[in-house]
């Protein structure tokens, strides 16, 4: 059980901080938490997954873990309505983390909506490794851009796009990516956001020959690898396409290995397809 120590509305989102004790020290950028929602007699039997925004290991004081939640349906709305002091049932950290380069390379971090959350922690790690970090955040409207001040400070450049033009450049992140990649001679893209956006980013990364790591978001029933609901088709090193679990083989995956736009069908040639 993790106690809520802060819950603040930030634009369209809620920034929630939990006291999680020891486990904060195991959290890496890209990992997620799974939280039970609805309280004791909830009709919602499944946990909700949230990307870890930041984690602070504070030794004996106990660690903190932060997430950014968009009130969407019943589960996320319930969570954003809980007050400081309330204890939630939380499992963390889960899933794969963003791969950190050993060299001081040039990284571009691209986030859509609340997908920006895990990128700020990542940015710090990359900076500490001597990487240059540029960031592009996009959303439909200004309220859905999550970019806290200290987060902004941690990057070399921050470009914002909104579809309705309420802040930053009017358009989508993909409109500005090619230019930024070229100008800043980007070596690697890290992305997090809606699947459609990740696919579009991946196309650009492929076209421009840039490495692309993305955190995917599939419906998850268990979050720990036992249910096989969260799969997506991924081409392995042996060339074989397999339905892999995004909760334990992801959420961070190599963008070029994903067979995109495969919702509602199994890609031809997938291992075991018939």
């Amino acid at each position: 059980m993790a106690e809520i120590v802060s819950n603040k509305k930030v634009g369209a989102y809620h920034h929630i901080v939990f006291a999680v004790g020891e486990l904060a020290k195991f959290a890496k950028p890209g990992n997620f938490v799974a939280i039970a929602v609805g309280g004791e007699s909830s009709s919602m039997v499944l946990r909700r997954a949230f990307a870890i925004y930041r984690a602070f290991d504070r030794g004996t004081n106990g660690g903190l873990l932060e997430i950014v939640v968009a009130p969407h349906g019943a589960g996320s709305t319930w969570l954003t309505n809980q007050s400081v002091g309330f204890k939630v049932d939380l499992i963390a950290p889960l899933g794969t983390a963003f791969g950190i380069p050993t060299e001081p390379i040039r990284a571009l971090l691209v986030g859509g909506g609340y997908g920006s959350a895990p990128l700020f922690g990542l940015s710090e790690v990359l900076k500490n490794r001597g990487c240059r970090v540029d960031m592009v955040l996009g959303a439909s409207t200004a309220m859905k851009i999550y970019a806290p001040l200290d987060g902004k400070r941690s990057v070399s450049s921050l470009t914002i796009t909104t579809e309705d033009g309420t802040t930053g450049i009017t358009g989508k992140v993909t409109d500005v990516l090619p230019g930024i990649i070229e100008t800043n001679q980007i070596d690697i893209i890290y992305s997090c956001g809606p699947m459609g956006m990740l696919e579009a980013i991946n196309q650009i990364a492929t076209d421009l020959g840039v490495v692309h790591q993305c955190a995917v978001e599939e419906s998850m029933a268990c979050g720990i690898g036992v249910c096989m609901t969260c799969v997506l088709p991924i081409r392995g090193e042996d060339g074989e396409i397999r339905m892999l679990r995004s909760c334990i083989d992801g959420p961070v995956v190599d963008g070029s290995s994903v067979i995109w736009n495969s919702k509602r069908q199994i890609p031809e040639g997938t291992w075991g397809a018939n």
Partner: protein
Amino acid sequence: MFNFRTSLGQAEFENPIFTASGCAGSGKELAQFFDLTELGAVVTKSIMLKARSGRATPRMAETPSGMLNSIGLQGPGIDLFLEKDISWLRDQGARIVVSIAGESVEDYAVLARKLRAVQGISALEVNISCPNVENRGQVFACQPATARAAIEAVRRNIGGELPIIAKLTPDVTSIVEIAEEVVAAGADALALINTVLGMVIDTNTMRPKLAGKTGGLSGPAIRPVAVRAIYQVHEALPNVKILGMGGVASGRDAFELILAGASAVSVGTATFGNPTAVIKIKEELQTQLIAHGFDSLREAVGYAHRKDGNQ
């Protein structure tokens, strides 16, 4: 000393709490959370003859107090499964119940032959709630004749050792009729119940939420259906052991299925909400049984059927 032991057919188990097929991965994933030897048994996900990609996504939808899934039996096929998963489980010292599923009667026969000589398996759970490709995709467990044929195929090929637990679907007019049929065909015990056929329509896209359209409903929502099925079958076939399942999320729930007639209880969906649910349920069940004055699990099995006292 409280006696928690139980049996299904000739197989004995230290305690009656098992994982449910398809809800515990290969065992490895749960082993991070607790020692698998704490379980009565690990029931593996239903394995088929060949590797399967399973169904397209989305494969799940949450529903009130439950969920739908349409995994479509994704898995590596029996050969890889025996090579990797079984040997790993055996190394852990876990009690193993292997679940098998086929698309034809012949599949069941071949699967049984492949398993008959395998060491370290306690029982076979035969999932006959799968579409029969030879019969317009009709589910084996839905008709007495096809249910019988699948179980007979396993019986003939498995040899005398391994108990056969036939897993039935509640989506039939009379589950007692199917139960009688599969017992006549050689099933030693019954697993009740598989998921209930359901559908969710996404009101945003205005289409079925699951790529496979329909899916199997599981979780607490179906517990009353499971209790009813177990009660009816135990009433009709009091000597046939039942592995109960369906919406068990607490020791109280497991106790309910046991009172209805289950000799052991599998936990599925509850594990998704809580990775250590099986352990919690096991402990709570023992506490409940002792609090009600039972000296052993066995005494409680089917206790709700007793005729004494006022009704």
